[in-house]
């Protein structure tokens, strides 16, 4: 039968007849098929081998790691914001406090996974909250690799209707939560706004550099001012709650508090609220006076009030200011622009975010003359009894043969008399000091640059190191500085500009030309005049206190002890001569601000300054006044005030009356306020 032909493939070769093409070969299990089956079997074994190997690696070798990931998956950590510390003035008045608010938060990990569902939810949310979808997407994207930390979509002090809607329809908004939060409240509005700074959510760049100090995404951090400098005390520590959720973000357990939040510590400033307010009002008053004198470009200013005994800053005002409340709740470009806080509007609003007291730099003008006087006395260029002529002008022979001499004019074109140093200070004779400046110029190179050397000892040309940023160091010009600054690359006239010329010394003697100082540097120098020649460390914060709100007496947790005032090695007699000149300036009939301070009690000593207009920067005369009180009294001076009214004209016309306002407030209230450091909160 045919079956024999089929059997085990034996029929192939020993056939008698050739195969009939019409007869189909019976099926045989050929070696060819056996080979192919073998290959399939091998493939199957390899496939299962791979699967087993991979499963072994996943489940047995790195199982614990994936178990951890799986457990993380269901636990959502929720930060419980800590109440930020408050900022009190020296008498316990809260300058910055907190109010409870409500925030709507998005957890990107708990939003719908599919794009259409996610977009639909965000659209719905946008409709309720009036926050653009685009903005939410940008913020979610910014979270990128951190889908756990929620994005704050909207913050508000009041729990308004939209937030209530979300709260009541939470089921419709997976991944969205309404949580209590704390918002900064600025009791006195724009008061000291540049100084206090503001807070906002930590930026990615900040997070990168600050992560090692325990900052996390979503943290609130001080941005600028004291909020930034003292952030590590103020911020406290956020608590942590945990919650088991499913993949749709629906809670599967109750909230469990894992780590309680730690409220931030409050700081108490050396600042005196009333004096600060008086100083801010005084700038506006000074500007008003300048307007009265047809100085219509007067538009800004700064006042620093300092305790000359220890460097405590009593007031630090800068005008114009902004309202820090624009940074609470939802920050919009529109609100910022209205306050001059965006790049486009800052110039138009005259830079309200700039803290002019420490970051504004101005030529010092005649308020600088005591520096020149002290340097001259110390180098014996002059003595206390030296009489020099005060003339309408002062000529310096030209360096270049054949050129006419350079002529420097006096402010008072009719002055023509011999005078000693106190009189020259009192009358603020420019030509008198030009002569001294020229003497400095003519000193042999071996003497160095005594004027700049003494100015540096008085703290000019570098930052004071006050505990608030950003601070400028100003500019103390030296021949070396000229050489360094004016090079072929930067200046076409560098061959001329790089050399230090007689005019540089002459004008530096009256605080003009390249010299730039900050109001705080000036105040610090006048504190040195007032306290017997010691350089103080200006500072704003006296201690860290616990217990906020002012209801109970705060407990001092940490006291900041500023560096002790450093004697700069001045001859007391030299100092006495200069102080005599400053007293005459406010009291002698020829004194520049006698009309302002002559009748004020206690007596004040101080110097006007009129930093002359600089045609290159389109600045008009800067109106300066710096001084201290009580002067020539049995009591040591208690306060130094330095005021500048930008483009305000003569010092005596705008800055001096503004400074007087501060003295008035200080001596009026100093008898009423609690003494410094008693720790009593009266707020």
């Amino acid at each position, binding site marked *: 039968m045919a079956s024999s032909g089929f059997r085990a493939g034996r029929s192939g070769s020993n056939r008698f007849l050739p195969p009939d093409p019409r007869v189909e070969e019976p099926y045989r299990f050929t070696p060819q098929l056996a080979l192919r089956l073998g290959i*399939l079997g091998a493939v199957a074994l390899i496939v299962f081998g791979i699967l087993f190997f991979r499963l072994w690696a996943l489940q047995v070798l790195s199982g614990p790691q994936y178990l951890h990931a799986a457990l993380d998956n269901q636990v959502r950590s929720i930060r419980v914001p800590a109440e930020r510390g408050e900022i009190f003035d020296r008498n316990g008045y809260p300058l910055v406090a907190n109010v409870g608010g409500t925030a709507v938060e998005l957890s990107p990990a708990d939003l719908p996974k599919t794009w259409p569902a996610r977009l639909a939810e965000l659209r719905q949310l946008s409709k309720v909250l009036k926050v653009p979808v685009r903005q939410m997407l940008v913020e979610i994207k910014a979270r990128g690799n951190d889908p756990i930390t929620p994005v704050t979509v909207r913050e508000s002090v009041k729990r308004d209707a939209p937030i209530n809607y979300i709260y009541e329809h939470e089921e419709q908004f997976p991944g969205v939560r309404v949580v209590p939060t704390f918002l900064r409240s600025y009791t006195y509005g724009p008061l000291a706004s540049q100084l206090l700074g503001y807070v906002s959510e930590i930026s990615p760049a900040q997070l990168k550099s600050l992560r090692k100090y325990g900052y996390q995404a979503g943290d609130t951090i001080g941005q600028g001012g004291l909020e930034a400098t003292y952030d590590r005390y103020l911020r406290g520590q956020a608590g942590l709650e945990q919650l088991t959720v499913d993949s749709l973000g629906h809670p599967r357990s109750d909230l469990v508090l894992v780590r309680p939040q730690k409220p931030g510590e409050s700081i108490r400033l050396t600042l005196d609220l009333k004096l600060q307010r008086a100083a801010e009002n005084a700038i506006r008053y000074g500007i008003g006076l300048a307007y009265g004198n047809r100085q219509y470009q007067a538009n800004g200013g700064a006042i620093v009030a300092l305790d000359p005994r220890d460097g405590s800053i009593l007031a630090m005002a800068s005008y114009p200011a902004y309202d820090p409340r624009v940074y609470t709740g939802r920050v919009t470009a529109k609100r910022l622009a209205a306050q001059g806080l965006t790049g486009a509007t800052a110039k138009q609003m005259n830079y309200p975010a700039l803290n002019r007291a420490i970051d504004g730099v101005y030529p010092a003008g005649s308020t600088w003359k005591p520096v020149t006087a002290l340097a001259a006395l110390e180098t014996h260029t002059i003595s206390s009894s030296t009489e020099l002529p005060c003339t309408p002008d002062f000529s310096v022979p030209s360096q270049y043969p054949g050129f006419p001499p350079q002529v420097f004019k006096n402010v008072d074109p009719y002055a023509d008399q011999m005078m000693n140093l106190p009189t020259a200070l009192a009358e603020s004779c420019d030509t008198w000091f030009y002569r001294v400046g020229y003497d400095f110029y003519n000193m042999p190179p071996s003497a160095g640059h005594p004027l700049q050397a003494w100015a540096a000892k008085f703290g000019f040309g570098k930052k004071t190191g006050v505990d608030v940023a950003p601070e400028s160091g100003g500019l103390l010009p030296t021949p070396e500085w000229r050489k360094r600054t004016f090079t072929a690359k930067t200046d076409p006239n560098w061959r001329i500009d790089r050399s230090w010329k007689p005019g540089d010394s002459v004008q530096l003697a009256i605080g003009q030309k390249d010299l730039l100082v900050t109001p705080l540097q000036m105040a610090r120098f006048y504190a040195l005049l007032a306290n017997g020649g010691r350089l103080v460390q200006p500072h704003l914060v006296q201690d860290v206190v616990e217990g906020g709100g002012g209801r109970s007496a705060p407990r001092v947790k940490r006291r900041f002890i500023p560096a002790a005032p450093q004697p700069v090695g001045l001859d007391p007699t030299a100092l006495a001569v200069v102080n005599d000149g400053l007293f005459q300036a406010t009291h002698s009939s020829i004194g520049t601000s006698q009309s302002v301070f002559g009748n004020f009690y206690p007596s004040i000593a101080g110097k006007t300054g009129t930093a002359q207009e600089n045609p290159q920067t389109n600045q008009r005369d800067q109106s300066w006044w710096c001084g201290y009180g009580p002067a020539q009294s049995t009591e040591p001076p208690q306060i130094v005030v330095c005021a500048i009214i930008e483009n305000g004209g003569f010092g005596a016309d705008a800055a001096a009356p503004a400074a007087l306002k501060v003295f008035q407030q200080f001596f009026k209230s100093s008898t009423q306020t609690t003494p410094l450091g008693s720790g009593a909160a009266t707020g």
Partner: protein
Amino acid sequence: MIEAVDTRAKGLRRPRSESVDLTAFLGRLDWILLGAVAALVGYGLWAIGGITQHDIPGNSGYYVVRQGVYAAIGAVALVAVVFIDPEYYRRHKRVIYVGTLSVMLLVLMAGTVSRHSKRWLDLGFFRFQPSEFGKLLFVLFLAGFLADRARRLGDSRTVLQTIGFAAGPILLVFIQPDVGTAMVYAVALAAVLFVAGTRWTHLAVLGAGALAFILTVLWILPSAGIHVLKPYQQSRLTGFTNPSSDPQGATYNVRESINAVGAGGLSGRGPKGATQTNYHFLPEHATDFAFASLAEERGFVGVSILLLLYLLVVWRGLKIVSAARDAFSAIAAGGIVVAFLFQVFVNVGMAIGIAPVTGIPLPFVSVGGSAMIANLLAVGVLEAIHARGTGPRRRLLR
């Protein structure tokens, strides 16, 4: 011994009545394969019971019961198919082909859309997925086609004709769209060509062509701006190579699946403790990602048992190919076994991040009636081939 010879095809003999000797017939079944499949179905039901315990609140047995019913229907179908001589399929291969194609066209026109894909025909009580049954019918048709041309297999025309006929169903499945099942069809095509004895050179050319096709679709055309696949398909197919590339997007499933598998550890977290499954971090855990859920709940031990059962089925399947009575049976068995192996590999591989994410169900485990019944039918065909095969006899004679 005569029944082993393929004489009926030439009309020399009437088919022997099989009801005559039922006991002898039962003795010729592959009881190891049947045992393995029964164990798989039972194990799958037990696994689904744990996986879906929390899916429907208040009715923890919902899916198990449904799945059990399907398994029972499938078992009846299996028994019925065992008694059908495979020769019958060869003779009616045209009907099979045209029938399959028309049902698939019907799906395209009147199918139910679910998750962007039109794969189902709604029969009211049952959502019927023709492409699952199509896998078996497709193999049977191609096997018949090739068996009829057994002498001309070396001819490249035969190979091209086969591919031409296969292209129809593959394309219809692909545009549903169901890339995963289309891949299974393509692999089944390759398997039948391979087992039928296509020349090595032809196979090499086909392999190279397939590789070029995959590269073109996934890489060359998209970079030229032509997208054959939808973006989500593309990212699923390629995403497994870099699971952390987009944790919230395309590779979310893979990442969560790997987490679930890894978290299972050696002995599993049990149906209660399996948070990836119970809290729905693992999507599609009753269907496409059933393996990951099983791995989370039962651990390495649990999945090893499952994989060993699969290996047993594949081994018995390959033995059936060697014992087949005729070319048609051998080719059909080969196609069925390779398609089965491929489905297991892609489904498990997807769950552990070594294969692309495609909607291929895990045979005998994933929830789904069509797949369960179709797979049991395929086992029935294998048993029918075995019962009429030469295996036991060959051993006797040796």
